[in-house]
């Protein structure tokens, strides 16, 4: 089994809302330096899906990530949980792109890797929350794809996927090679064991530049964008919360009910 998992290092979405600051001119969002970045939670779930297949069917997992200012002990977690190789697309010309530039760069890198049965992606990146790159790679490589997987199994050449849909799930069959985006329902990424920490120490990531994957400069980074970001802002909350008081909490609750009736909400 040759598996590829696409990962993205992002600002920690669990950071407290007030710690985010936005630079209005540069349309960029920041967190204080001491809050370390994380691997996008959905990509971690995609990695877990690949690891479970490797546990049962054996094979090799290549983790692939595009980005900049990688924090080594964050991104090398992929190796620590069981990926066999980590490839980083890191170059200033990759910066400032949207889903189209990212999907193109990752697709070119996957072509260079050459062998793959299943490509795993997260259902969306937990920073820009779009969910475009997985489908983009599938389209660019001419692969069938299944999105929002919550269970993945393989029997000889076909993959059986339970896909989240409405109030239940669909069971879908897809031949390899294919691309699968994974949803959080699949479960949390396994914890890093001490053996994994040792393993991550020993394996060094491979870094590729655009020229290493023969990428067309006009289609990566900001030049490859199909969308323009005009404004980034914090939604301002105008609501003024009316705190209902009372002798004690129980009485306050009664007053709340009356207030809601008065506001025709009950």
């Amino acid at each position: 089994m040759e598996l590829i998992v696409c990962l993205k290092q992002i600002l920690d979405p669990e950071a407290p809302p007030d710690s985010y600051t936005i630079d209005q001119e540069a349309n960029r969002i920041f967190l204080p330096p001491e809050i370390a970045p994380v691997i996008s939670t959905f990509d971690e779930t995609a990695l877990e899906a690949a690891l479970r297949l490797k546990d049962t069917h054996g094979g090799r997992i290549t983790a692939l990530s595009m980005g900049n200012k990688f924090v080594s002990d964050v991104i090398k977690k992929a190796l620590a949980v069981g990926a066999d190789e980590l490839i980083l697309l890191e170059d200033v010309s990759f910066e400032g792109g949207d889903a189209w530039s990212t999907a193109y760069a990752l697709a070119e890198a996957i072509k260079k890797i050459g062998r793959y049965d299943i490509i795993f992606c997260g259902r969306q990146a937990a920073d820009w929350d779009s969910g475009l790159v997985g489908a983009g790679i599938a389209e660019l490589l001419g692969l069938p794809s299944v999105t929002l997987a919550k269970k993945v199994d393989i029997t000889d050449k076909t993959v059986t996927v339970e896909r989240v849909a409405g109030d239940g799930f669909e069971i879908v069959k897809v031949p390899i090679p294919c691309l699968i985006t994974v949803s959080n329902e699949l479960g949390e990424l396994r914890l890093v064991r001490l053996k994994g920490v040792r393993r991550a120490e020993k394996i060094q990531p491979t870094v590729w530049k655009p020229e290493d994957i023969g990428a067309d400069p006009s289609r990566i980074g900001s030049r490859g964008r199909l969308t323009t970001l005009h404004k980034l802002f914090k939604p301002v909350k105008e609501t003024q919360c009316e705190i209902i008081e009372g002798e004690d909490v129980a009485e306050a609750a009664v007053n709340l009910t009356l207030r809601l009736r008065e506001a025709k909400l009950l």
Partner: protein
Amino acid sequence: MTEHKGVLIIGEIIEENLAAVTLELLGCGRTLADKLGERLSGLLMGSDTRPHASKAIAYGADKIYIMEDPLLEDYQSDLYLAAVEKMVRRVMPKIVLMGQTPMGRDLAPRLGFRMHAAVLMDCVELDIDTQTGRLLQVRPVYGGNARAVFTSETRPQMATVRSKAMSPLERNSSRKGDIIEIKPEIDPSAMRTKLLEKVKEEVAGIKIEDAAILVTGGRGIGGPEGFEQLEDLAGLLKGAVGATRPVVDSGWCPTSRQIGLTGKVVAPDLYIAVALSGSSQHMAGCSGAKHIVAINSDPQANIFREASFGIVGDWKKALPSFIEKVRELLKE
């Protein structure tokens, strides 16, 4: 190259009727088309679509294209992609809208890359930039901690829209519009994935996405037993019970009840948030609620910045008397 004109909605038929989000898309599409001075059309696929087509016209469409084929009855990536791509190349719309639904999340990205046209996912606001005539697409990012305004450089300009972010028009059966049947010419060999089975997860009572009143519990509830009280209150109000991610992760509630970035998006009229802090990941799923009522012991909890009404205190003391009073009021 002929000029792109008009707004095209990709409709969905769920459990034999027009999906709520499709009506919302028609409402929003109508406004955009009027601002552009152009026509609003829709596409419905599946079998026995004609009755839904006329309903779509009553909700604002000028023209509805229908594609009938048993193979299109259930959503299948490759066939729907091929069908929709054909329609879009034929109609040459300026704007294509889909719902942010399991279908939309799968189809829109593929279509965007297939046609090398930008798609903005999960938009909550759409407008036309009066000077440039371009579609302004506003979507939440960073788990709801921020919002971004985009435009697309390519045509058609495509977007999926978060359910309950837009409102449908009043139904007007006297509206006139034409229904045009298109032969889908399905090529079954294009189908690379095969749907084997659809499994329904039985959910007691009303689905949380459709409930007008929601009672949601957070980690502060402390355990599955606490949720029984929430069920009583929801039952009284003919609403449903929702949960935050920590609650679902701890196994106190099924995943189908989870509200938030990684759960469902709801926009009820009344959202009663009990013992939950209101993290941005959770608010991403319920900030669309018309009125939020918060019960939390921590006055600084973020939920109080989102709520219109609230009590500061222990929910175990507040809920019993709240339920009693509601029961009393409903009797009158």
